[in-house]
Structures are given as C-alpha cells and as structure tokens.
C-alpha cells in the first residue's frame, strides 16, 4: 500500500491525543465536598466494570477514529482493477511520467475536418490531468526541450501548444524520456507518446532504454492516414529553379508555382517519376541582375498547409573575368567567346583556365602529354591542392547532382583524380571533377578526343557554371528548420550569405508507421487507440483510493463513539 500524501501520516501522532487528554484531565480535577460519599462509592463500585469497559471502548474508538481520518487524509492506495478507467475513486502509485507531445509540422494536418494536433493535445491533457501531486511529470514537445514544473503549468503548456516548424526525432525523444523517468526513484515509470507516428520519424535507430529497464511506453495509435505532398526542396541553378516534391501522394502531377517578389514568374507540373521516385520539376527563372534573390515555390493547398510553400534564395554574381590559356584548347576558347558575347564573362584574370594553376582562381585541365602529369601534380602540390592526377581511368558517363547539364555525357579518356575533398562530378563512381579551395580540377581535357562534352549542348552552360559559380565559390546558403523565411547574413554592408528556414522535407510524408514498426522502434511501446490509451494510462501502477471507504468508516466510528458516549452514561 502506498499513499498519495504520505506527509499526512505525520498526523498519526495525534492518535495519542485521546490517551494524553485522558491522563491530563485525570491529573487536575477540581476538589469538592460531597457528604453522601458513601452513596457515590456504592454507585461507583456498581459501575466500575461498566465504566472501565466504556472508557476502554471510547479510548479505542477515538484513537481508531483519528487513525482512520489521518489515513484517509494521506489517501492510501490499494491495488485496483487493471483496465478500469480511473474515475473519481481510482488513483495510482507515484509515477515518473514524460508526456511527449509531437507538435511537429505534420501535426497540423487536417484529418476529418480536425487538426491532428487537437487529438494529440487532448490525450496529453488527459495524461497530465490524471497525474497527481505525488507524480513527477515532464512535457516534451517537438523542440526536444524537457519541460518540468507543476501539473497546472504543464497543462497550460499543453493547452497553448500549436503546430511548430521543428521535426521531432521520436526515437531519440522516447529513449531520452525513458532515461529521465528511470532516474526518479518512484514506483511507476511511464512515457506517453502522443504523435502522428510518421513513418519517417521512426526510421532512424531504436529506443532501447525502455525495453531494457521496464519503462512503460504508451503510444497513441495514428489516425486515418491521409495523402499529402509538399515542397521538399528548391534549388536555383543556371537560370532555373529545380523543385523537388516530397510527400506520400505520388499519383497525381503537382502544379508548382514560382513567385518572386509576390509575383508568379513561372509554373510547371511536377510529375511523379516512374518507380516511385520523388517528382522533380525545373521552372525557368527570369534572368536577374547581380545580387541576392529570394523567391517562393508554392503548391496548391492540401491537408497539410505547412509544406505547401517553401522559400528559396540564390545569388547572382556579376560576370567573372576569365582568361583561357592556349593549352586549354579551341572548344574552351569558343565557349568563352559565346559567354563573353552573352555578357556572362569578361576579359581578365579573375579565373584562369589552363594546364597549370594560376595565382588565383583556376580551372586546371590535365596535360595532354602524359609525361607532363608529374610536373602538373607537383605544381598542384605547390599550391597546396590535396588532389592529383593518377592513372588513366575507365571510360564512362558523367554523373553529377549539382551540374545537371553534364549528366550522362560520355567520357572516353580520363585520369583518375586521387586525393580528398569536394567531388562535383564522377565517372564510374570515381572523382572526375573536384574542387579544393579556389582550384577546380578536371579528370579529362575539354576535347572531343577525351570526352563528348565539348560537343554537347550543355558545354557552354557547364563552362558558365564552372567559372561563375563553381570556381568562384558558391554563395553560402545554409538551411535550418523553422517557419518558412529567409534571413541574410551581413558582414559590414555586404551580404555574405543567407539562411533558409523551412520545415524538414520528411514532415511531408504523412504515412504512419505500422504498430509493429512503432513498437519495435520505441522500445516495446504499446500502440493503443484512444479508448485503450485512456484505460491503460497509469494502469501499471493503478491503485484504488481507499480514502472514501476510510471516511465512511470514520463516520461509523464517530457514530459508534457518540452512541457509546451518550447511551452508556
């Protein structure tokens, strides 16, 4: 048996009061003359046994009454019926409880006309409301912050919770919560997971702490799954915004609109890829003057509004001054002429293209003569470049995520690039285009004898990207979770970078994990529907509050005391 208010048991000391009062009163009775003492002695002699019994009975009744009242005040808990909803008379043993309320962006999805968060919030509220002052309770929201405090404060926090912009790593949160409750020396340890149980939120790792230590994890079962798609990512390159569609609705094309300064500047349909890949669409962005530009990709509204728009930002640099060494070949010279004509580059030595690295930014091509490879490598080493040309590599197509215009272009002759650093394109999985600071190295010469690139349509855009963006160093655009917005970083009067805030793209996939997946990932969590969740709350430590029965007993004792005190006179 345990008690909700064990401190009240200190009142048991009051059980000695009747005996003490009895002794105290016996010590100081007033003294009076009374002549017929012989009658009194006779009466007392006749009543001695009855009075002794009466006094003993009254002392017993009063002491028991105090003990029962004190016990009732301490609210004793006796084993209750598991599975019974804890109503008025039911309670539980002191329990350490962490309520994880997943208010990540996906909780804002509207299912059956009601936000998912409303259901989660109701369940969290009920869990906290059922806790008692003897429990230790914490609340964890999607930001991962463990909130302690009184039950009332946490209830207020729950009631004020709205859908946030931060994704919750549910597995890590449960693992941490389990360790937290285990640190409390209380009889019960429970973690209540109120989440939409997104499959993507359970994909990484397993929470082992609950399973290992016997913490009870109750997870509210996910509601009805709904289809959703959102803007997963937007990247601007070579005059186009490449928009990736994320989410679980991959059956219908998604119309994407690009907005600049609040004005629609482009629109396209993102068609799902065959085989289940994410839909990607490229929307042309009108040429802009040099500087920082911010825009927004917008989808039509659906069940989850948080991912229907996503900002993007890019930097348009002024035309770079490029000088190509004669050894770079005619194709490079011709492409630069085109770019100069289009005002994409100018004459100068900001960037040098040749067989050897220049003093500044350089695009270094492998020497045509294999005998000069060693000399070129030494020059690179002298510049501190951690890459060098190695043995000739096998032919193959170019693959590059960043430079899409050269994807699939065949390479027939190349040198392997050995070293460590940033790889921009590969051939047969081996580095083919790499960057080390202001130096960019190619594994093949821009010559049709080495590769089909000079004859490909993407060669001029490739060279444009190479000199204007790749070798010049791309403007730093960081990404972070948060409400969709762009924040620019300044150094003096110059804008040196930007941070793009948006929800995690994984939040768009509303597909819930199966109960089995949730149980496995969350340390043996019991995945329960709303009714079962309400029944199982604190069921492991549920106890019936015996204070009501004790109060009834106290009333009976009081009535018995009154009866003995009055009727036995």
């Amino acid at each position, binding site marked *: 048996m345990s008690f909700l208010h064990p401190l009240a048991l200190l009142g048991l000391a009051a059980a000695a009061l009747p005996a003490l009062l009895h002794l105290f009163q016996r010590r100081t*009775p007033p003294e*009076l003359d009374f002549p017929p003492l012989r*009658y009194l002695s006779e009466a007392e002699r006749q009543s001695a046994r009855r009075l002794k019994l009466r006094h003993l009975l009254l002392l017993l009744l009063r002491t028991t009454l105090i003990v029962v009242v004190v016990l009732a005040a301490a609210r004793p808990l006796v084993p209750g019926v598991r599975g019974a909803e804890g109503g008025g008379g039911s309670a539980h043993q002191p329990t350490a409880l962490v309520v994880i309320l997943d208010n990540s962006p996906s909780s804002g999805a509207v299912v059956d006309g009601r936000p998912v968060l409303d259901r989660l919030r109701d369940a969290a509220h009920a869990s906290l409301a059922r806790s008692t002052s003897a429990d230790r309770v914490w609340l964890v929201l999607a930001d991962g912050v463990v909130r302690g405090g009184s039950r009332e404060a946490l209830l207020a926090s729950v009631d004020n919770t709205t859908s946030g912009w931060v994704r919750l790593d549910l597995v890590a949160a449960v693992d941490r919560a389990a360790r937290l409750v285990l640190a409390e020396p209380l009889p019960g340890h429970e973690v209540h997971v109120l989440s939409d149980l997104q499959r993507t939120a359970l994909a990484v790792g397993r929470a082992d702490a609950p399973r290992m230590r016997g913490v009870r994890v109750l997870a509210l079962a996910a509601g009805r799954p709904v289809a959703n798609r959102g803007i997963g990512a937007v990247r601007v390159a070579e005059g186009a915004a490449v928009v990736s569609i994320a989410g679980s609705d991959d059956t219908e094309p998604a119309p994407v609109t690009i907005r600049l300064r609040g004005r629609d500047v482009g629109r396209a349909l993102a068609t799902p890829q065959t085989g289940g890949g994410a839909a990607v669409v490229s929307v042309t962005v009108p040429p802009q003057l040099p500087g920082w530009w911010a825009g927004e990709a917008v989808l039509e509204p659906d069940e989850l509004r948080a991912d229907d728009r996503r900002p993007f930002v890019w930097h348009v640099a002024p035309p770079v001054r490029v000088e190509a060494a004669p050894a770079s070949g005619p194709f490079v010279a011709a492409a630069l002429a085109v770019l100069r004509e289009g005002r994409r580059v100018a004459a100068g030595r900001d960037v040098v293209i040749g067989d050897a690295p220049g003093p500044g930014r350089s695009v270094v091509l492998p020497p045509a003569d294999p005998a000069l490879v060693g000399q070129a490598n030494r020059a690179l080493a002298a510049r501190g470049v951690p890459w060098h040309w190695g043995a000739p590599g096998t032919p193959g197509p170019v693959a590059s995520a960043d430079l899409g215009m050269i994807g699939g272009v065949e390479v027939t002759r190349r040198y392997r690039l050995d070293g460590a650093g940033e790889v921009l394109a590969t051939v047969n999985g081996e580095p083919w285009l790499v960057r080390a600071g202001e130096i960019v190295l190619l594994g093949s010469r821009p010559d049709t004898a080495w590769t089909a690139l000079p004859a490909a349509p993407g060669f001029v855009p490739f060279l444009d990207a190479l000199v204007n963006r790749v070798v010049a160093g791309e403007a730093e655009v960081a990404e972070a979770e948060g409400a969709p917005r762009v924040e620019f970083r300044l150094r003096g009067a110059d804008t040196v970078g930007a941070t793009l805030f948006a929800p995690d793209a994984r939040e768009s996939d509303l597909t819930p994990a199966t109960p089995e997946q949730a149980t496995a990932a969350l340390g043996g969590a019991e995945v329960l529907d709303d009714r079962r969740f309400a029944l199982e709350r604190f069921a492991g430590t549920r106890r019936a509050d015996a204070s009501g029965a004790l109060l009834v007993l106290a009333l009976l004792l009081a009535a018995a005391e009154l009866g003995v005190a009055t009727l036995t006179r």
Partner: protein
Amino acid sequence: MPAAQRLDLLDPADVARLGGIEIVAEGVVEGFLAGLHRSPFRGFSLEFTEHRAYQPGDELRYLDWRILARSDRLFVKQFEEETNLRAMILLDASRSMAWRGAPERLTKRAYADRLAAAVALILLRQRDATGLLTFDEEVRQLIPARVKTGQWTRLVRGLLDTPDGRGTAAQAALQRLTALLARRGLVILLSDLLFDRELALTALRYLRHRGHQVIVFHLMDPAEADLGGPPEVRFRDPESSVSIVVRPRELARVYADTVRREIAAWRTACRRHGIAYHHVLTDMPFGVALRLLT
C-alpha cells in the same frame, strides 16, 4: 391568609432571609397552623384514662360508640398523652449537615434548625413538654423536655449554641436519649442519615420498644439526590476526608438509583419497626415538611 403569602409555603431560603430562627419559626408556624383544622400531634398516645361528656367541637372519632348505643348519651374518650405529651427533638449537627449543594439554598443544618424550632413551637403552644438534643460524635446540647415559659427560647438558644460538628454518632445520642426519656413520648430525629443504618436502626428500635413514638426526618440537599458538577471532579467526604474522583455525568444515573434505593431501604426499615419516615429536601417549604407530621 392567601397561600402565596404564607411563610410556611415559601422557599425555605427566602424565608430564612427574613430574620433569625425565632422569627422564621414563628412565621412558619403561624402560617402552618392557619392552614390546619386541628393540632398535628393530638392523639398520639393510646393510653386511655377516662370518659367525659361530649361538647360541641370535639372530634367525632373519639366518640365512644358503645356508650352511645347502650345509654344513648354522648361521651368522648380521653387519653393521658393527649394532655401531657413529652416530645424530644434530636438534631444531627454533624459536619455533613453543614453542607449545601448551591449557594442559594440553606444548608441541611440551617434547614433542620428552623424546622426543629417550628416543630418545638407547635408542641409548646399545645402545652406539650418539648426538649432538644443535638449531637455529632457526641451529644452537644441537651435541653430536657419542659413546658414552662421560656422553654422555646431555650430550645432556640440550644440550636444556636450548637456548632457544626465533625463526625456523626447517632447511635450514641439515641442511647443517651433512652436513658433520659423515662416516660413514653415522642422522638423526632432530624438528620441526613449519613451514618450506619443498622446501628441507628438498632437504637431507634429500642426507643420503639420502650413505647416511644418515633418520627425520622431524612434531610437531603437536592444536589445529593441528583449528581452533577464538572466533567471530572474529586469529591471529598467532609467528615472523613475520604475522596474519590468521578465523572458525574457517567455516574449520575447509577448514583440516583443508589440514592433511591437508600431512601427506600430507610423507609422500609422504619416502617417495619413502626417508625414514621419522611424524606425532606432542603428546598421543600417548611409548611410542606410540617404537614408530613399530620
């Protein structure tokens, strides 16, 4: 005199505040006699002496019906004591008699003094010889029975001169009395009877055996009949200083039963021996107590 103004029917304590014993007794007796049609003590003796001719006003119960039947003349019987009653008043002056249960009441002793004075006055007015014996552990005052002038004053003085005693020895006083009463007469005992009943009854029986008429007034304060007081109290016997701690409320019912049994025991024992027994509470008007004698 309207009943409401008769001193014998007023509260004894109120009456006692009117003056000394003499004034109170006289007032009580005046009121008492005014309410009576005949003397309360006439005809106690059965000692027949002679006949005399009936005169208007004689009580019919003393008419000799046999003579009336034989001779058709009216004669009444006369008794010796009727004209020469010797009465002795015994008053318990023990310590227990000097107690009262409430300040507004008379002590049992004060009540007994006034009652004794009233009885003596009635007897003396009837020309009956009346004496007084006060006692506690021993006889304190002894005034032989006389009928001469000033006897009542002497009796009252005897009452006043008797201090409150300590213990009680009724048996010794009664034995002393038997030696003093050579002729048969009337003995009136005023006491709270807080002494050994059997010993006292032995002496009273002896008096009866000698032919005396015995009347016992058992005086009791109302607080002695119904136990009350603080929740817990140590009661002390003023005579023996023995004490006992009780809770009056717990014991009240049994105590009342005990008192009733004690009274009943006295009444039964007295009746068995031809002794008149009267239980008198000290808040009882003197006239009511005197009426018990009729």
